[in-house]
């Protein structure tokens, strides 16, 4: 039993990442009708927002400290961090420690800007072109984005730790009456899960309760009719692209402490996220979220030793297997709407 709880918990954080990326993908596909292969790259750029901010915050200058000497007796040069100089030692250290959460604030405007630029500069011209062209041009864009990141940050993963307060693990099992250390769950993963849930709830609330969201939902259902009502749907859709980019971005920021950001992490997640979207049902937001968590958990179940012993390798292929079965038996996916991408 405790094993099962462990696997569900393990599946949650990966599932959260899948759900967030799939949510953005679906927002873009549902509103703009564009299949965005560069969405994984946006996730990756979000993660690098965390890297950039933590580098900015730990910017330092050197001063000569007379009180310390090196082994030759010369005065030692020490790094002084700007934030510490400006905000005092303790506050500065805290700010540096909290670089990743702070990066969320930093990443939102950055990612919305990138999203706007992408939509206005490129995607806009592909609304009327075949899906294959959209896939190809965004695939090209993804390569370009990741190569740019690689140029500036190199090919190696960059460790970006979570704040000290979230280091360590929660002994979850004790709460449920298991003995100590039976079910350990790192705090940050818990934070990631709740954060994702918050973002997802936020996006749904936004679409559900604002006029803007209502128009967008109407546009997702029937773009032409909404256009006929004289509503400038294009502007709203541009904003939606920005929003989707921001969702992918913050998902990346918060994921940075879990997997050290590297330039190809976007591509790694993209393939799986597409599978998630297809399983959930192209164009269905709840479907994307549900499938994200479902597949994340399923994947971690499949990695249980007990399962792998019976079905070796199942952990490697479970997601694809589910996708194939779903696509063939329920072509619309779990919650897909009629008429979306059907032939």
């Amino acid at each position, binding site marked *: 039993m405790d094993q099962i709880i462990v696997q569900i918990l393990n599946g949650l954080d990966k599932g959260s990442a899948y759900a967030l990326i799939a949510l953005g993908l679906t927002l873009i596909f549902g509103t703009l009708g564009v299949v965005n292969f560069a969405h994984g790259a946006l996730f990756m750029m979000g993660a690098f927002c965390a890297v950039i901010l933590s580098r900015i915050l730990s910017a330092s200058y050197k001063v000569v400290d007379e009180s310390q000497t090196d082994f030759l007796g010369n005065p030692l040069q020490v790094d002084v961090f700007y934030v510490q100089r400006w905000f005092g030692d303790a506050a500065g250290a805290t700010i540096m420690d909290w670089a990743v959460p702070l990066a969320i604030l930093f990443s939102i405007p950055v990612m919305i800007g990138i999203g706007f630029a992408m939509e206005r500069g490129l995607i806009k011209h592909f609304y009327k072109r075949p899906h294959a*062209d959209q896939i190809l*041009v965004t695939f*090209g864009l*993804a*390569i370009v984005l990741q190569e740019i990141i690689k140029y500036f940050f190199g090919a190696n993963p960059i460790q970006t730790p979570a704040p000290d307060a979230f280091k360590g693990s929660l002994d979850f099992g004790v709460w449920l009456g298991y003995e100590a250390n039976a079910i350990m769950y790192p705090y940050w993963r818990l934070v990631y899960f709740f954060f994702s849930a918050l973002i997802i709830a936020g996006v749904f609330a936004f679409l559900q309760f604002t006029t803007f969201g209502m128009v967008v939902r109407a546009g997702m259902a029937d773009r032409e009719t909404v256009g006929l009502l004289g509503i400038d749907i294009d502007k709203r859709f541009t904003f939606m692209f920005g929003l989707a980019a921001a969702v992918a971005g913050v998902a990346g920021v918060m994921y940075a402490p879990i997997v050290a950001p590297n330039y190809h992490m976007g*591509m790694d997640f993209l*393939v799986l996220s597409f599978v998630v979207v297809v399983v959930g049902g192209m164009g269905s937001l709840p479907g994307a979220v549900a499938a994200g968590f479902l597949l994340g958990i399923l994947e971690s179940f499949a990695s249980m030793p007990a399962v792998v012993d019976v079905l070796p*390798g199942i952990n490697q292929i479970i997601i694809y297997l589910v996708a194939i079965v779903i696509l*063939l038996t329920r072509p619309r996916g779990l919650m897909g709407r009629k008429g979306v991408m059907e032939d």
Partner: protein
Amino acid sequence: MTDQTNPSVTTATPTARPRAASGGMLGLTKKDSTLMLIVFALVMLAPFILNPFPEGSAMAQFNAGYPDLMQRFVIFGIFAIGFNILFGLTGYLSFGHAAFLGVGSYAAIWSMKLVTLNVIPGIVMAIVIAGAFTLVVGFISLRRSGIYFSILTLAFAQMSYALAYSVLTPITGGETGLQIKNTDSPLFGGPTDGSIGRANLFGAEMGNSYELAVGSWLFTFNLGYYIAGVALLVAFYLSIRIFRSPFGIMLRAVKSNQQRMNYTGLTPKRYTLSAFVISGMYAGLAGGLMVAMDTQVGPERMFWTASGEVVIMTILGGAGTLMGPILGAGFIKYMENIVSKINKDILHEWFAFLPDGAEDVMVSIVYPFIGKGWHLTLGILFMLVVIFLPGGLVEGGQRIANKFRRNKTDG
């Protein structure tokens, strides 16, 4: 070049007077025969064409006429020609073609490990097994079209990769892959002295090379390369035949209007599946040839980025054109192997004629795009082609040629 991208003047247009169109060879029109001859000459003379710079000169690093790279040119050319039969004609975008290449490779290496070190059975096995595998994958994937088809093929390929990497280790060698070892004892004609067997064609080893030194130039003629080259010529010839056949028209009809096909009494699915299997067999041939050249295979050959690469090759060169895939494959492999080696020092040499400050500026502008950054250039080029040149480099070349022609007549 072909005119496929501009169907109103397409050479595929059938003529009621076949006699008037004759004058070519091997049953091809004159125009197609010319194309075939060009490719023939390119393949046969590649050791010269690709080695234009004398050994030891500053430009020698741009020589691509060494066997290993030449083999890659033609093998990836075959891979892309096959992919083009599917994507270029039917418009079905497969993101899993590397899996078929990989399966072909595994089949070939087992043939060489168990049966004979002669490459012919290995290559035949590669084509057959890859074809059978493609048939299964295609039968399932083609139940959907559009982006779903792309994702299904991607899912199958990733699954194959994951399985080859883990569970199927007894068959695939897992992470380390498979090599020919001195413990292998093929049924026919393995080495008896305990040495590692080498791939051969009726005794002539793939690695055999004849080197020709002319002045300070050195040209290498490698047996393996020429075998792969002949395979490319056959593959290219068959692709011309397919493009110009009724079957080829049917495949283009699939891309154009499946509904009309249905109501004309045709089954678009079976045509697409045939194209899918044919392109899978091309991939298998490419995979088999790879093994024939370097007698090894690993699962990374099936990773989805490898599938993405053949997509880029085909589209960059010109999807739906005959020459495009070959050009695209050559272009990318040249960048990957030659352009990627340019480093900062070489750039400084190039821009040495500039004043110091300007030299540094130029180097820092150019550097991100070449050397290790060649992927960036490739990504940008690929995007530009998708946006502006649906017919790829072939169409670009045609446009430039047309412009020149017009200028000439104007002047």
